[in-house]
């Protein structure tokens, strides 16, 4: 996906919310957009999604896009399962595939028991899970997340972290906005900031806190499939016997890594978590 010299303002004399924005997000990239409130982050995502048109410049999309809005309306008169089925069909899925994937994501977010409840009777967080599932069932080439984590419980946030990383690992381009500066830290390919003048600049990512104790996590992957390429903290990997793997990561990232291993795919069994020997 590529934005070329994109500018956006509302009305002829309006302030330029975005100006001269160049941004290319290739397959497999996970890109974060930072910026103050009202700086145009959401507008940038809406331009990328084709929901709004740029006042100047061009937006090129390689194919289907899925978008998760910041606030999802519970006023929609659907229940979760039939909404996901209908949107899945709009994404071009067969009815059978849409139903299967909807069931899978509702299960993964732990709301399969509320599949038949009208959205108007779901809590805000549950509704947001449906909004996220709506985008994930499409397995899109481009995934746009506009503060999609807001309102989710910690478990669901971890699932969405994994889902975003998985999408990138499978060749999707993922562009996200979130208030939590540590969101997907260590797994994000690039960070850009929208400035007050509407310009977009790359942000140097902070170097990983090197030094300090190293934690070793040993896991067994029973089905033998490889672990995702990008994991929190970019751990060192060492194959052990059989399907077991040892991951070594600085302690700052070990909790995030563990969480990601537990909720992510492939399913793993944790064999051991310990501080690397010979260190204090």
């Amino acid at each position, binding site marked *: 996906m590529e934005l070329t010299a994109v500018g956006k303002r509302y009305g002829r004399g309006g302030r330029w919310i975005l100006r001269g924005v160049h941004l290319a997000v290739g397959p497999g990239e996970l890109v974060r957009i930072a910026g103050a409130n009202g700086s145009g982050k959401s507008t940038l995502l809406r331009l990328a999604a*084709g929901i*709004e048109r740029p006042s100047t410049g061009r937006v090129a999309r390689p194919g289907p896009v*899925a978008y998760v809005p910041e606030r999802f*309306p519970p006023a929609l008169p*659907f229940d979760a399962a039939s909404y996901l089925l*209908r*949107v899945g*069909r*709009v994404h071009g899925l067969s009815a059978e595939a849409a139903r299967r994937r909807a069931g899978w994501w509702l299960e993964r977010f732990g709301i399969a028991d509320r599949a038949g409840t009208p959205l108007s009777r779901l809590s805000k967080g549950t509704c947001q899970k449906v909004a996220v599932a709506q985008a994930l069932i499409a397995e899109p080439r481009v995934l*746009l997340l506009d503060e999609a984590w807001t309102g989710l419980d910690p478990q669901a946030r971890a699932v969405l972290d994994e889902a975003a990383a998985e999408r990138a690992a499978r060749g999707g381009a993922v562009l996200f906005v979130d208030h939590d500066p540590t969101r997907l830290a260590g797994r994000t390919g690039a960070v850009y900031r929208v400035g007050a003048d509407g310009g977009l600049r790359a942000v140097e990512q902070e170097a990983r806190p090197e030094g300090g104790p190293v934690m070793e996590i040993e896991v067994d992957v029973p089905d033998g499939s490889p672990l995702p390429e990008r994991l929190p903290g970019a751990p060192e990997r060492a194959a052990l016997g059989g399907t077991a793997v040892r991951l070594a990561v600085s302690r700052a990232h070990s909790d995030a890594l563990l969480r990601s291993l537990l909720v992510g795919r492939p399913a793993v069994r944790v064999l051991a978590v310990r501080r690397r020997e010979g260190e204090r």
Partner: protein
Amino acid sequence: MRLVGALTRYHLELLVRSHAWLPPFLAFALLMVIGVQPGDPLLGGLGFGAGVLVPVSAWYVRAALNAEPPASRACLVAAAGAPRVHLGALLAALTAGLLLAAGEVAALWGLSGAVANTGAGHAPGVGEALTAGLATSVVCVLAGVLAGALGNRPVLLRSPYGILATLGLSAGALVLPGSPANAAVRDLVTAARTGLVAAPWAELLLALALLGLLGAAVAALAGRRPE
């Protein structure tokens, strides 16, 4: 095209589940009860019913476009593009209007008396009258959907003027000479007096062409003016 089908289905389900289909339907039923008595001549009733279908179909367009909250529309637009989403809403309104037209013709067939007015020179067959009535109703639904498409977003962005414009365009489609709906309804009402029935095939073709052309243009405009 498959995506447009899925979007039409989405908007139809939205119309049904949100009960947005109900107010236009009730208005239609009320006007029919006021305007047509059981036992009235069939052709006159069909002419009246077809005329009422114009504003009601235009209302269905407005209902289909407004039933969707902006945030969930944004998800659809990202997935399928604004022109397809808009086309889906228009086709959902068209489907609702056509279902109403079929129901109207069936109900009038069951409740009406003689085919033509008393004193008509000819006695037309029921089949002939129903064919002409159905074709006229379809012409009126097409004209109404066109009026609704031109009187709402993305052509008119300010909502309050949209209602006025939709009503004005519907009235125009009924009374302006040259409009296919006007010609078809006039033919049907004349046929009730004279007993000479002719189905409005030319008007039907013209209405189809107009809606196809302008509907596509409106959908394309929705892509250029997505919000």
